[in-house]
Every structure is written in structure tokens, then in C-alpha cells.
């Protein structure tokens, strides 16, 4: 049985931990709100971009002449996996679930004899994956210390990827991130961005008129597709930021609750041993008096 002093120290230390986790939870809650707003603000653009691209893609009948970003390079040999994770830990299974998904896919592709490259955006995913992969891993892109992820950052990542694609660095590019469903649920998601995955959209009613394209359709597609990549990346980064805060909030909520339970259990042990100590002393005094 631990001594009373030891128990007191334990309780104090658990209480200190609880204070920290509670503070982290509250910080995450307020950051979450901002991240969520940012993610929602990005939605209209991405949705409309998707609709416009869907429209254009539906009009392209000749897959031979279609841009490579849309139709693919015609080969499926090399893959680039972009793994977007957080810069910091202490957010439950958030980082590891994204990394696990990407790792499983990488192993599956390698088993099929494909070439795989992995690009990490965010330090945590890099730290996890570098244990399993070395030569496949591209240098890390990190936005540590950045208060707010904006379009500029997404554009930066997109430019790098597109440059690599132009040089024939890979045929297919997939993006791994965590989709923000709600505070409790974040879904690790894989999204294929090259060749572009175009959702089928309803063709809007044009009232019998045909679309005028200025300049040509293909030129518009050429301009739009790279932009779409940047948008998809931005969306992933923003969703990720919201997911990270959500995951951290629930992880810290759990931690705070666990600490509370621990404090309760320790307090009971502490009180019991204190009473036992008093009883013991009383018995000693009484039996001493009786012996006289």
C-alpha cells in the first residue's frame, strides 16, 4: 500500500494533467468552429467547379483529344499518394487512421508491382510512414506554425504535383485526408485527383441554346483542370483542419473524463488508508492504556 504522501502526490499530478487536457479541449473547440467555417466557406467554389467541369467533360466525346489530367496518361504503372495529416499529435486516432489507410493502399499497389511515391503534407503522417517507407517517400511539405491554411498553400502543393505530372513522374494521383462529418466522426477518405474524378452532373436546361465557349472547350479545360487540382487539395486541407480539431476535442474530452475517474479512485484509496491509519493509532493507544 502506497503511503499517504505518495497518494497525495499522485492525486495532485493527475489533477494537473486534467487541467491541461481540459484547456486543450477548450482550445480545440474554439479552433474547430473557425476551421469548420473555413471548410464550409470553401464548399460553394468546389461544388461549382465540379458542376462546370462535369458539364465540360460531358461534352467531350473524343477521349483521345482530352487533356491528360482528365483522361489519364493511358498507363497505370506509377502512383502518387498524397497523405494529408496534422502537424501535431494528441488528437486521438486522427493521424494514424489516415496513415494506415494510405499505407494499406501503398502495400497493395506495391504487391501488384506498381511504382508508388508518397508525398506527405503534414509532419505527423510523415513520421508514421517513414518507418515503413524510405525511398518511396518524397520530401515533406509542412505548414507548421501556419495560422490559417489558404488557397496559396494549396496552390503551392498543386504546382509541385502538376510539375511532376508533366514530367511523367506518375500516372495516377490519390489524395488521402479525413473528411469532417461531425465532431465525433471523421472519415479517412481517398480521393483520386489525377485523372480527375468527375461526378456525373445534371446538364442544366439551357432553353434550347448551345453553350458558347470562349476560347475553345479544350483550352478552357486546360485552364480549369489544374485549378481544380488546387481546389481539391485546398478542400482536403480545410476538411483535415476541421477534422483534426474535432478529433482532438473528443480525445481531450475523453482524457479529461478519465483523469476525473482516476482522481475519484485515488481519493477513495487515500481516504481509506487515512482512516486505517487513524484506527491503527487508536488501537495502539487503547491497548497501551489497557496494558498498564
Amino acid at each position, binding site marked *: 500500500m502506497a503511503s499517504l504522501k505518495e497518494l497525495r502526490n499522485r492525486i495532485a499530478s493527475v489533477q494537473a494533467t486534467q487541467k491541461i487536457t481540459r484547456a486543450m479541449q477548450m482550445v480545440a473547440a474554439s479552433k474547430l468552429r473557425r476551421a469548420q467555417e473555413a471548410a464550409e466557406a470553401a464548399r460553394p467554389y468546389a461544388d461549382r467547379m465540379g458542376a462546370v467541369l462535369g458539364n465540360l467533360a460531358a461534352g467531350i466525346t473524343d477521349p483521345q483529344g482530352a487533356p491528360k489530367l482528365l483522361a489519364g496518361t493511358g498507363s497505370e504503372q506509377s502512383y502518387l499518394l498524397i497523405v494529408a495529416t496534422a502537424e501535431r499529435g494528441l488528437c486521438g486516432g486522427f493521424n494514424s487512421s489516415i496513415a494506415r489507410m494510405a499505407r494499406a493502399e501503398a502495400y497493395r499497389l506495391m504487391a501488384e508491382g506498381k511504382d508508388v511515391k508518397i508525398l506527405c503534407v503534414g509532419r505527423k503522417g510523415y513520421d508514421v510512414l517513414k518507418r515503413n517507407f524510405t525511398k518511396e517517400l518524397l520530401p515533406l511539405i509542412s505548414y507548421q506554425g501556419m495560422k490559417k491554411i489558404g488557397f496559396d498553400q494549396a496552390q503551392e502543393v498543386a504546382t509541385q504535383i502538376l510539375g511532376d505530372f508533366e514530367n511523367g513522374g506518375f500516372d495516377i494521383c490519390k489524395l488521402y485526408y479525413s473528411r469532417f462529418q461531425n465532431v465525433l466522426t471523421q472519415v479517412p477518405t481517398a480521393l483520386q485527383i489525377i485523372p480527375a474524378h468527375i461526378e456525373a452532373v445534371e446538364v*442544366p436546361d*439551357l432553353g434550347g441554346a448551345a453553350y458558347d465557349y*470562349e476560347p475553345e472547350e479544350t483550352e478552357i479545360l486546360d485552364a480549369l483542370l489544374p485549378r481544380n487540382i488546387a481546389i481539391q487539395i485546398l478542400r482536403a486541407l480545410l476538411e483535415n483542419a476541421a477534422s483534426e480539431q474535432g478529433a482532438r476535442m473528443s480525445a481531450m474530452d475523453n482524457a479529461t473524463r478519465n483523469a476525473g475517474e482516476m482522481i475519484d479512485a485515488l481519493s477513495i484509496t487515500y481516504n481509506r488508508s487515512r482512516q486505517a491509519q487513524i484506527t491503527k493509532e487508536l488501537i495502539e493507544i487503547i491497548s497501551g492504556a489497557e496494558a498498564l
Partner: protein
Amino acid sequence: MANKLQFDLVSPESLVLSAQVDSVSVPGLEGDFGVMPNHSPVMSIIRPGVLVVENDGVVSQYHLDGGFVDVTPEGVTVLAETILTEAQAAERGVADEA
């Protein structure tokens, strides 16, 4: 004044403007063009320039660094990466004839 067109100005970070307006003048890649209600459908790339929106005689300008416009019978949607209002543009010292 029942005849207006729905105009949406969207940047990746926010929905800048979504309103019913009288007309929009767009700096297209192959020349500026104005859009009034019931315009025929057009898709065009936007070159860096000034977008002019007119509503009830009130003219507002937005500086764009390029983007994309989609005109349908329902309305006009402008997608642009950087959108500055006149005041923001003046702050950054962008010339009016950008």
C-alpha cells in the same frame, strides 16, 4: 425591374457575393463582355481585370486576378482565386485599369 439576373461571385475561401443584379461586365480572355438577363449560355476564361456589377444604378467593381465565368439562363457564376473590392484594391495600390 423584375428582370434581373442571379449573380454569384465565388472565391475558394468564401462566397463573396450572391445577389440579383441588373447587369455584369466581365473581362473575358478574348475581350470584355456584358451580361444582361437572358444572355445566351457562355463559358469563358477571365483575364486579370475589373469586373463591373450594376444594380439599380449602383455600380460596384471587383478586381480579379483571373478566373472563370459560367453564364446560364439562370444566372452568372464567376469563379476567381483572388477577389478584391475597390477599397481593398486601393489599399494594395492596384491601378484602376488593372
